[in-house]
């Protein structure tokens, strides 16, 4: 048997191995926002009853802030509540965007898990989340004093993430 006869078989075996290994692996890549490094999108969201809401201008105040996308229906958002409280105690300004949520449910969620937020905007149709390049909740964006998005944290903030986020805030402040 010559090399030219064996070569196709070797290639086929290599392809089969590649496909076999990769087909068995669930493919769910994290889609990072392409908005990091760009200014926060223009938006103006209504707030809870009797509260001011959140708009783009609230994010460019000369000092870095966090914008936390959350929802009362989101379980990991409950998990990260103590970490948001810790950041708040460290003097960090955190604004909240409640995704596809009802005001009464948001109020109940905050009453139960604590309210670390300076301002809260209600993104009822999820359009502002798309503006940030967000692909779900919870997600947290770091916005610098000029209103430029500098970092994105996907998923719940775990206790070990708190020092990293504080360091990142100092870097942009």
């Amino acid at each position, binding site marked *: 048997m010559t090399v030219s006869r064996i070569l196709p078989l070797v290639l086929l075996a290599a392809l089969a191995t590649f496909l076999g290994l990769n087909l068995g692996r669930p*493919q*769910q*890549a994290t*889609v*990072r*926002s*392409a*908005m990091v490094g*760009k200014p926060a999108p223009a938006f103006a969201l209504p707030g809870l009853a009797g509260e001011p809401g959140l708009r783009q201008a609230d994010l460019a105040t000369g000092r870095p802030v966090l914008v936390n996308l959350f929802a009362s229906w989101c379980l990991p958002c409950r998990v990260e509540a103590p970490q948001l409280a810790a950041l708040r105690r460290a003097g960090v300004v955190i604004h909240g965007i409640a995704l*596809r949520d009802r005001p009464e449910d948001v109020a109940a969620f905050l009453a139960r898990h604590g309210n670390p937020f300076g301002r809260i905007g209600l993104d009822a*149709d*999820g*359009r502002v*989340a*798309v*503006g*940030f*390049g967000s*692909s*779900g909740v919870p997600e947290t964006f770091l916005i610098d004093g000029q209103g430029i998005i500098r970092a994105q944290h996907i998923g719940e903030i775990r206790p070990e993430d708190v020092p990293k986020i504080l360091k990142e805030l100092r870097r942009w402040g």
Partner: protein
Amino acid sequence: MGLRAAAWAMALGLVGAAPPPDGWGVTPLPDPRQEAAARRLMHELRCLTCQNQSIAESNAPQAETMRALVRERIRAGRSPEDVRAELIERYGDWVSFRPPPRPDTWLLWAMPVVALGLGAVVVRRLLR
């Protein structure tokens, strides 16, 4: 709204301007040509929560939000490529199932031609 007021609103185009009660995420556009263009684009945009489905196929709330965005933009007269570019600006190339023709993607686009050429060489050698 009384009948007369409704007639006036319609005459002034106000009724057409209001979004449908269920939103553009589930309601097709009144103009069939615009709806067809919007749908073509929806089939080429990736749902971010259920990634291997397009936003046309997915039931995820985020897909509905993105469908509404696509329909609104198309309705306002923007071109599908313009809307695709807007979403790529937010999510990167990954949001589109159609890779953009760019210097760093030429190999990808050239691959079918290259594969066909290689196949032709193999067939010629076998037939000789």
